[in-house]
Each structure stands twice: as C-alpha cells, then as structure tokens.
C-alpha cells in the first residue's frame, strides 16, 4: 500500500464516540421465541385482545418465511432463539411522569450523546418521545400538542388510549407478512411512536424521537405509525445511537406512514448505531422496513435519511403513490466505513395519475466498506403522466471500498417520464494535499469534501438537524490524524 492510501485509510479510521453502556438493570425475558413469549410481551403491556391476536397471526406467518438473501450484504446466520425479545428499564411498572422522575443515569446517557433532552426540547421547541430500550421514559410538550389535537405518544399508550386508530391503520402500509423482518417485528414489537395529526392541522412543532439500544443481547423491534389526516402537515425527526458492545444486535423496526388527501409528512432520520469495530465485530444489524402510503390525492411523503451507523443496513424507505397527483421524495446520505455494509435505497410505486417522485442518493464508502444503492421505480398501468427523477452519486474514500448501484425500473404506462443519473467520484490524495497546502487540516478537508458532496440532502433536513447530521458525518469519517 502506498503512503498516500495508508494516510487516507488512517484518516477514516475512528473510534465510535458514543460507545459506553449504561447499567440500568433491565427486566428482560429469557432468550427464545414461541407463542408464550408473545403472550408474555402482550400481557406485560396490558394489551387488548385484538393486539395479541394480531401479533400471533404475524408470528405464525413469520414461521413460514425465510430470511431474505438478495441484498448485497453478508453476515453470519442469526440465531433467533438466542435473542431476548423484551427488555425494559427497571422502572417499567412505575413509569416516570416527568423528567425529574427519570433515572439520572439515563439522562446522563443522553447527555454523553450530546442530547440534553430537556434543554434540547426547550430550546428547539421540539417535543421528544424518548425511547430507551423498548419503553418510552420521557414525553414532553404534550400540552401544546394536545391543544392542537395532535396525538404524539408511545405506541403502547396509543394501543391503550386510541385503539380504534391503531386498529384502523396498523399494518395497512406494511402488512404483517410483507417481509421476514417486518413479520418478526409485527409479532414481537416492543414499543415505538404513534402520531396522529387531525384534519387541517399543521403540527405546531417538529416531532422528535431519540432511539437508543442498550440492554445486551436484546433485539430491538420498534413500531412507528404516523397518520396525517386530510390537509395536515407534520415533520418527524428520528435519531439514534447505541453503546459499544460485543455481540451483534438485530434491529428490525417497522415504520408506517399514512398521508390522506392533501396531507404532507416529512420524515427525517439520522441513524448512528454502533457500526462494530474495525473488524466489524459487535455492530448493529439494522434491517428496517419503512414505507409511506400517499393514500390521498395531492398528498406528499418525503423521506430524508443520514445513515452513518450500523454494521449492516438494510433499508428502503418507500412511497406508495396511490393518490392522484401525490408526491414521493427520498433524499439519502449513507456512509459505510471499515467493514460496514449498507444496502439501502427506496421504492417509488406510482399508482395514481400524475404522481411524481424524486430520488437523491449519496453513498459514501471508506475503509473496506461496501455501499449499495438499490432503488425501484415502478409505474403501474393506471399511473398516467407519472414522473421520476433519480440521481445516484457515490463517493469513495481510499482504495479498498466499493460502491454498487442497482436501479430497477418497471414502467407499465407509455406516458411515464423516468430519468436516472449516476456518478462515482473519489477523495484523492491530490485533493487532500491541496486543501492542506491551504492550511486546512486533513480532517477538515475530508469533512469539507464530504459535506460538499452531501449538500443537496442536508438542505432537506430541518435546520438544527442538518447541523447535527453534518457533525455526525464528520465524526463518522474522523480519523486518528496527526
């Protein structure tokens, strides 16, 4: 290896900043999965009968499914019997009503992550429903939201307090048998967020949830459901980090979005789970199903994601453009470093007339990482006048990483206009030396180049999130320079 490529390699090597484990005692279920475990989960959550039945049905379907193998990722077989399907902080039975009642250790954890919950919430006017392991422990700004009629609560609370809404919408975007991981999630999901924006309401603040995996050896199965009723608007932010650890952790979340007539949902994610060490040991397996249904006419769903973490990411936030004139957008930055593997992209399913979709994907690969964009644009026979624009850019840092693009197009209406552009570029030793000769440190130079590359996506993020995302990206590509 030449000195220059070694340099670049050492530059992208960095230790995970958020690596520490909080020792809050957890009441986990023993490892393994059968119908009794599902009954136990449901019972702990005091769920109504319909919920239990729904879970069991999903479980029975899951038993008949096999793990998908088509993605451009490799990992040892997961032993689903070695996973504990439920973990909760000790305080589960006595859930805190305010931040004062929250375990100070937990607040400390957020603090280390640079997420001073109360402060952030107060300063940014953001309502925060923090998910620690599997149970919500802090919810703020409830009053202001309920004044507007907005429901923003943990999924468990929604099941308890708004069962009709849950019954009506749950599984209508991602059916139980949609895929292997979605079926598993449907059977054992622990908690997550629920949002309902009533007709004509513009949600008065950005809704934000910070996820964090903690209990060792516990798969995490979040379930999120967001419903934007006619003419409403909501912007939802999701961000997460995880502590350093040794075993691989499975994370199989499901997110369902429903936008009715003239409604708009903007869903932004910054994902920073532990990616594993330099050899890829100990990282999170992030197998997520995220799908939005533009069910109503003129509705719009926009996904923006910045993916820097996880050992393996398998994730395709998608839009079903059912309503006429509906709009789907996907803006993505995916970073893969060291031995990280990312297979991510989107699906835009055009069903309604004059539906439009935009895809902007920025993949960054460093170290020995593999980064794949996988995108499907499907124009159904009835989708007259559908349009799609896809732009897919890859940036390589160093010589041992790879970028792959798998665009699929299925066009069944002759009026469709579908465009696809793709580029691949590199951060070269020449570029770094050029910047350094101008007095800019190597790290700053990499950040500058990477941020320049990602600008279009960052522009889509809410302001304070964009700043955070940029910082996160910098940390992700930070090296032991100097």
């Amino acid at each position: 290896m030449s000195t220059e490529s070694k340099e670049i390699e050492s530059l992208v090597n960095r230790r995970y900043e958020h690596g520490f484990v909080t020792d809050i005692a957890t009441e986990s279920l023993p490892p393994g999965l059968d119908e009794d475990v599902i009954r136990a989960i449901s019972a702990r959550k005091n769920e109504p009968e319909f919920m239990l039945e729904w879970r069991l049905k999903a479980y029975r379907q899951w038993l008949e499914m096999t793990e998908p193998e088509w993605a451009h990722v490799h990992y040892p077989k997961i032993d689903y019997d070695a996973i504990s399907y439920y973990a909760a902080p000790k305080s589960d039975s006595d859930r805190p009503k305010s931040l004062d009642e929250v375990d100070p250790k937990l607040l400390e954890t957020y603090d280390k992550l640079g997420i001073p919950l109360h402060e952030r919430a107060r300063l940014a006017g953001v309502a925060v429903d923090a998910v620690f392991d599997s149970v919500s422990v802090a919810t703020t700004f409830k009053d202001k939201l309920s004044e507007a009629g907005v429901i923003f609560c943990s999924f468990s609370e929604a099941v308890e307090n708004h069962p009709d809404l849950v019954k009506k919408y749950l599984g209508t975007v991602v059916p139980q048998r949609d895929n292997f991981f979605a079926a598993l999630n449907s059977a054992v999901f622990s908690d997550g967020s629920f949002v309902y924006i009533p007709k004509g309401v513009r949600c008065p603040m950005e809704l934000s949830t910070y996820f964090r995996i903690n209990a060792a050896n516990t798969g995490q199965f979040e379930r999120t459901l967001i419903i934007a009723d006619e003419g409403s608007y909501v912007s939802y932010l999701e961000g997460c980090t995880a502590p350093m650890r040794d075993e691989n952790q499975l994370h199989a979340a499901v997110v369902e979005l429903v936008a009715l007539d003239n409604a708009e949902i903007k869903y932004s994610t910054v994902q920073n789970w532990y990616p594993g060490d330099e050899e890829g040991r100990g990282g999170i397996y992030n197998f997520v199903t995220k799908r939005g249904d533009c069910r109503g006419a003129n509705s719009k769903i926009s996904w923006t994601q910045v993916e820097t973490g996880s050992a393996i990411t398998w994730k395709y936030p998608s839009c079903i453009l059912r309503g006429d004139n509906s709009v789907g957008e996907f803006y993505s930055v995916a970073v893969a470093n060291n031995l990280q593997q990312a297979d991510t992209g989107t699906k835009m399913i055009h069903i309604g007339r004059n539906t439009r979709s935009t895809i902007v994907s920025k993949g960054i690969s460093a170290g020995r990482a593999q980064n794949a964009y996988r995108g499907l644009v499907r124009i159904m026979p009835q989708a007259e006048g559908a349009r799609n624009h896809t732009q897919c850019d890859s940036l390589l840092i160093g010589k041992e990483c790879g970028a792959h693009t798998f665009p699929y197009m299925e066009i069944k209406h002759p009026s469709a206009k579908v465009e696809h552009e793709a580029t691949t570029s590199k951060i070269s030793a020449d570029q770094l030396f050029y910047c350094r000769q101008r007095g800019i440190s190597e790290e700053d130079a990499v950040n500058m180049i990477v941020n320049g590359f990602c600008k279009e996506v960052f522009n889509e993020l809410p302001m304070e999130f964009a700043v955070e995302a940029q910082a996160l990206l910098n940390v992700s590509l930070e090296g032991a320079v100097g």
Partner: protein
Amino acid sequence: MLEIKDLKAKTGDTEILKGLSLSVKAGEVHAIMGPNGSGKSTLAQVVAGRDDYEVTGGSVTLNGTDLLDLEPEERSREGVFLGFQYPVEIPGVNNAYLLKAAVNARRAHAGEEEIDAYEFLKLAREKMALLDMDPKFLNRGVNEGFSGGEKKRNEILQMAMLEPKLAILDETDSGLDIDALKAVAEGVNALRSPDRAIVLVTHYQRLLDYVEPDHVHVLSEGRIVRSGDKTLAHELEARGYEWVREAVNA
C-alpha cells in the same frame, strides 16, 4: 528567509533531488528554470510537505523554522504557499468556502479573529478585479470545470488572499494566453514586497518578461547547476537547456 541546504529526496527507489541548495532572502524573486523532469515540481512539493517524497538528507528552513518537521497545513499557516502546476478539482466544495477556511486557518494560527463574511467578500472582490476574474467564480466548485487559465488565476487569487511569506509558483505561466499571463504577472507583482519571497518555477522565459527576477537558477537532474541574474534566463532562452547540460558535463 528560505534556506535549503543539500536537500535530497526520493520517491520509491528513485532519487529525484540530489543535494540541492538554495537561499532566498525576503523581498527577492527567484526563478527556477530547467528542463522537464529535472525536479522542479518535486522541489516545490517537498518544500510544501507532500508525503509522496521521502526526504533523505539536508534541511529546509523558513526564517529559521525547520519546515521538514511540520505537517503541510502547518507549513501553510507558517506562510508557505504553493501555486500548483495542476490545481485539482474539488466538486461540490464552494470556492469561497475553501478560500475563507484557508484565510481563517491562517488567522487562527496567528491568534487573530475570524474574518467576517462582509470583509471577506470585499477583499475577495478586490483581488478578483485585479486578476480580471468574474466574481461568479467564488460560488463555483473549487476549480470545477475551470479552464487551464482560470485554474491558474484561481491559484493567484488564493495567494493574494493568504498573503504568504513565501510563495512558490509552479509553472503558473504554462498554458496561459497572453492576457491571462499578464493578469497573473500583475497578481504576482502586486504581491512583491520587502517582507515576502517569491519563487517562480518556470519552463520558459516568457513570464520573466513581466515579473522580473532578482536571481535565476537552472535545475538539472536534481541539482542547481547554474545561478545568475536575469540575463541567465535570456541566455537559456537563446541557447536551450542542452547548453547547460553540456556545460555541466564538460
């Protein structure tokens, strides 16, 4: 200001600089000429700290500071500027952004405050006018899609903004039409000052018609084989590099 003593550098197993000495005082302009492959760019890059080259002997100091001990960015902040023979494109990174970061890196090093946006723009516009550059260049990607001449002007713009103690311009004149050459020369002349040293690496006499050097050196096979005043450049122009080589070998 710049003292290079018996400098030896190699890349891989190839020795390129074979004991090169050069002394440049503040206020002086030196021209380094020599045939292709003689080591001119290597010299410039080694002084700037490019790690493709291994220094195997000798010393390089700037006002007594050992440059070889410093990282490239530290050398830059100490006042070393290299105008590249082939400026690299950095797509997506705003030209103004890089320029401002460079100015601020230098200011931070000197314990000064960051330049504010207004002051920065004003200064950049002034310098660009001098170089006959369209202010729109500030908002383009660094060297992205620039013509050869535009890239070289951009180098001079950076130099003008950074006000280095030592500027080494590596073939900034090559590939320029006469207007661009004049603009670049004007930019260089504007920077001539009693507390600054300028080293012009060039292949031709042409630039020296516009920027008059105090000393001219001829580099051949990794050594300075001849030094003189500006008449040496004319002599070279008239007699060709073969003449130097023969003179050395004789």
